[in-house]
């Protein structure tokens, strides 16, 4: 008797190599397209008109120029030295702060200045344009 031999091809299972290729491609796609940036928010109370004498505490005024130079208390600062200076002064948290920003000052630098104020717990901020 002669039985027909089963070919090895029919006995072979589905090849997993193409599946692995597809999974690798998908993995590569998601690695490249994933965005791990975490977005936060910086709350600005909308700029209000100045009301001189409305607060008992004298407001402090900071002028920020387009190149990031900061003029405060009669001296020129940068973001780092401003933070140290404010920390030394130890202002009360309710001290009103008026930030006058130059027209061409990039928002990034403005945010850095606001960061410094918030680190020093100066939350009562007004941001206005620097009048030339």
């Amino acid at each position, binding site marked *: *008797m002669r*039985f027909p*031999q*089963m070919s*090895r091809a029919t*006995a*072979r*299972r589905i090849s*997993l190599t193409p*599946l*692995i290729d597809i*999974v*690798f491609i*998908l*993995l590569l796609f*998601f*690695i490249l*397209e*994933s*965005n*791990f*940036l*975490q*977005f*936060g*928010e*910086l*709350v*600005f*109370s*909308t*700029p*209000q008109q100045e009301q001189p004498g409305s607060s008992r505490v004298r407001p402090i005024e900071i002028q920020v120029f387009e190149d990031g130079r900061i003029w405060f208390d009669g001296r020129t600062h940068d973001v780092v030295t401003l933070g140290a200076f404010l920390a030394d002064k130890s202002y009360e948290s309710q001290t009103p702060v008026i930030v006058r*920003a*130059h*027209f*061409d*000052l*990039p*928002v*990034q630098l*403005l*945010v*850095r200045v*606001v*960061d410094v104020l*918030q*680190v020093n717990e100066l939350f009562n901020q007004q*941001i*206005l*344009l620097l009048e030339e």
Partner: protein
Amino acid sequence: MIKLDTPATTPKRIDEKIIPMINIIFLLLMFFLIAGNISELVREDVVPPRSSSTVVAISAHTDWILARDGTIILREQEMNMRQVAAWLAVEENSLPQRIVLRADAGTPSGMLLPLMDLMRDHGVDKISLVTINDDGNR
């Protein structure tokens, strides 16, 4: 004596070696699917400023976008300040009390602050500026 061919065992052995690797690949895939954010932002060229003081996590998707050249993208329509003012002048176009604004880090402050003024004039109390959390200062 009849000798029947035994099923080949080699393919099964190969499968057994590959399956753990496939498991790892699928786990990595799940990680990037869950942890990653692959949603497309409108105007991806508008990159928010970095900030070390913001810890509240919000979505970067917002109706209000301010590009570096001063173009305002409102509900996916590009406008300038004058057109936005005209749009807001229409009675039915009212603003909520809180607005989330995504401004480019390089946008001049002279374009941001007047926009905030305009929003205030139309009843907005707070403007949340979208920022990117600085990892180094956490």
